[in-house]
């Protein structure tokens, strides 16, 4: 991340970036193609476990409960680095961090950290969360007065590998919805096969049906929408970071390939048109870095309107990454379309990342809605 390096968190930021880079090189890079075969191949459970051991699931967990106590901007540093190599692991870190943000909102509303004592899995194993849709975009289960959940949570990310999920549920006879912490190991939870999806194959999503399972209310009843919006504002930074990581990874591979491949009697990097496409990719990646760094800075400083900056960055960088990674495939020609190289995966992953935190078009409409609301 082309971020400020003079603030008080510069050292921590660098340390986390190095940690994620090292983890990517050791645990993700070599078997990237094999990992991408999931659900038709093995899931990289070792890497998922090891990510917990090195603390990637506790970055935004309070220090008192075993976490690092950093904000979403620090999670962004990690997911950006991971996404350069394999965005699936970043998707796992993202889903867990988003769930922790919701829990954090609830704990703050109740002014109590009791929720953190309900399991010792926080920070060591990832939580499941509906990363790809806002609650109003998909079906959600119902919760009765005693907190029992019945119904389906569609496209629940990590639902088949996590022990616990943070899920929204409607409270019968009341307005709005609430978030609950649900035990996915309960025998009355039915989990579908992994949904075959466009991208982030090793960050699986499933449809989960609850048949009257007890769940713990997070925060206050009926406040789910508020918690979700607060989470979305912060986690937009992380979605933007994943887009930047994908752009950088795609550009790096395209540049290396163009210097190596000969057509028309010379390296393709010497063809003007190829060079122009590379230049466009470089501009997109650099712009993305800059945009992300600014959004992170505003979040760290809680600058007025940081939420809008974060939302706009996520939407815009999602679009840029889609464009850049598509060109990244194009620059490798036929090889770019093949799984031997990383480009086609990045193109699919970038498209999947565009849907993080909900449909980008709906987010745009919400965005302008907020602006209009404020101006009124």
């Amino acid at each position, binding site marked *: 991340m082309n971020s400020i390096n003079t603030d008080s968190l510069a050292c921590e930021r660098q340390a986390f970036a190095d940690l994620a880079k090292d983890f990517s090189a050791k645990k993700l890079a070599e078997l990237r193609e094999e990992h991408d075969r999931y659900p*038709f191949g093995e899931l990289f459970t070792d890497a998922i476990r090891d990510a917990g051991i090195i603390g990637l699931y506790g970055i935004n967990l309070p220090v008192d409960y075993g976490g690092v106590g950093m904000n979403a901007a620090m999670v962004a540093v990690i997911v950006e680095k991971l996404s350069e190599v394999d965005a699936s692991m970043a998707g796992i870190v993202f889903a867990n961090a988003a769930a922790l943000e919701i829990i954090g909102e609830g704990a703050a509303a109740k002014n109590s950290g009791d929720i953190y004592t309900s399991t010792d899995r926080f920070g060591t194993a990832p939580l499941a969360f509906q990363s*790809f*849709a806002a609650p*109003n*975009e*998909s079906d959600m289960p119902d919760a009765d007065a005693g907190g029992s959940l019945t119904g389906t949570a569609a*496209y629940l990310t990590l639902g088949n590998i996590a022990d616990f999920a943070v899920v929204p549920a409607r409270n019968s006879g009341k307005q709005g919805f609430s978030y609950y912490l649900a035990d996915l190991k309960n025998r009355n939870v039915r989990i579908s096969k992994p*949904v*075959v*999806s*466009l*991208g982030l194959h090793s960050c699986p999503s499933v449809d989960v049906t609850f048949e009257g399972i007890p769940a713990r209310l997070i925060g206050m009843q009926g406040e789910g929408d508020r918690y979700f919006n607060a989470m979305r504002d912060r986690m937009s930074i992380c979605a933007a970071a994943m887009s930047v990581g994908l752009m950088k990874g795609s550009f790096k591979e395209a540049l290396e390939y163009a210097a190596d491949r*000969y*057509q*028309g*009697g010379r390296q393709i990097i010497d063809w003007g*048109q*190829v060079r122009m*496409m590379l230049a466009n990719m470089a501009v997109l990646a650099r712009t993305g870095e800059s945009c992300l760094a600014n959004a992170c800075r505003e979040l760290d400083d809680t600058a007025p309107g940081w939420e809008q900056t974060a939302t706009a960055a996520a939407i815009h960088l999602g679009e840029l990454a*889609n464009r850049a990674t*598509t060109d990244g*495939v*194009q620059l490798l*020609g*036929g090889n*770019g*379309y*093949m*799984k*031997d190289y990383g480009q*086609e995966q990045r*193109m*699919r992953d970038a*498209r*999947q990342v*565009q*849907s993080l935190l*909900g*449909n*980008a*078009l*709906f987010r745009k*409409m919400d965005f302008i809605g907020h602006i209009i609301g404020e101006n009124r």
Partner: protein
Amino acid sequence: MKPLRIGRKEKLHLLEQGPKIWEAFNGLECQHRLAKSTHKDVKKAIAIARKFNNEVIRPIYLEMDLKCMEDHDYLAWDFLKKAGEWGLFSLFIPKIFGGSGLNFLGMYPFIEEIASVCSGLGHIIFVHYLGLATLFPSFNSKILNKVLRDVPKSEKKGEPHLLDLVITEPDAGTDVQEPLLLDRGRIGTIAKKVDGGYVINGRKIFISNGHFSYWHIVMCSEDKKNPAETFIQCVIPNGSKGFSFGTREKKMGHLASTASELLFEDCFVPNDWMSIVCQSPDMINSKKGIRWTVHSMIDYVVSSSRAGVGAIGTGIARGAYEAAMSYARKKNVGGELLVNQQWAQIILTDMYRNVNMGRAIYMESAYTDMLQGLFKLLAKKPIHYFLTLMPKWYFSLISPLLSLKLVTRLFRKYYYDWYTDEERDASSGWASIAKYTCTDIGVANANLALDLMGADGLRHDHGAEKCYRDVKLTQIYESTNQVNQMNLFCCLVGNHMPEVEFFK
């Protein structure tokens, strides 16, 4: 002064100013130059494709895609046989070569229809016609007669013998498909003359339908330092000594079709299967020279095939549009159907516009091919009526005549010696317009569908993500869109400017 009164000479002068009629109005020209019955063939081709979609492709295509994702070794032989039962591999083969003889103009909308449901399965059919379009420009009537007559026969036996185009090499992709780059390429597949034929050594990759095909139309050269002037096209059937199948690529999309590696190790090809040998006396002595002939031959192939890729891109664009529309009509957002959100209507309208724009463009390219490209002889009214009205048995009776060298010579005289730069530029240029515009449209619509459908669009069972994976290939093969842009510049943009240099 009466401006509407224009004399004949003045009119001709004005029309010559450009864009010229031959350059930009081929659809219009076709209205009076094509036989009236042509449009019936086009409608019939569309109807057949729709019926095949409904009865064969739609019920299996998503499951087939998953199957191929799960098992890389799976090959859709059952589908191939089913398409053969329907006679789809001989549908557009002219009656003179034993086929059903549906007009080639109908092939492009046929392709769009099939691709609108599944271009992966569709490829098994489309690529066969690419092989056919590769063999045709050899105008070697003896070989054409042997190979093409085998297709309907093999269909009837339940084991269809498909054709493929074997050209791409590990170090030469664009180079071997672009005539002006051929001599600069690192060509690795070499044919050496021996008694009674040639021995071929080399490796070809990314061969669409390779594992499915029986007749392999192979392009190579005798001299890697002078590939254009020693260019060779030959036909290698399965089972030939020294020929074998290699690996199959793991692709992002188009999973039901294959991209194969073909290996040639001292593969002997008898003279009877050499469809073009540039160093043969008749080619050396050709009126416009070997280089011009090879350039024209490659352009005949790519002009017809790139229009087809345009139809595939348009078909996928339509598939994405139909998936998005179907979704928008069911999805409720904030108490209102998505299709009733004004911004969603605009996106759907753009998608609809894109599909129609693509269709207009690939059809213009197809019209140009009818008048100035590979199909121009078949489009001549007397030839058209002769081929349409005479019964199949008549052509079986006269087919031995096609083995006469004279017939090949006449074909080549017409297609090479009498071919003009203007004709070649128009068909090649329009094919590039169709190829890169329609495939860009396809990618745009696949993106718009995913935009509209959000997380639901990412799921395989909704079909839109498959469009996204499939359509990307169309921007790459048949030369990348960027090479097609350069080709268009050569053919129709900078072709009349003496100071302009190409592929610099």
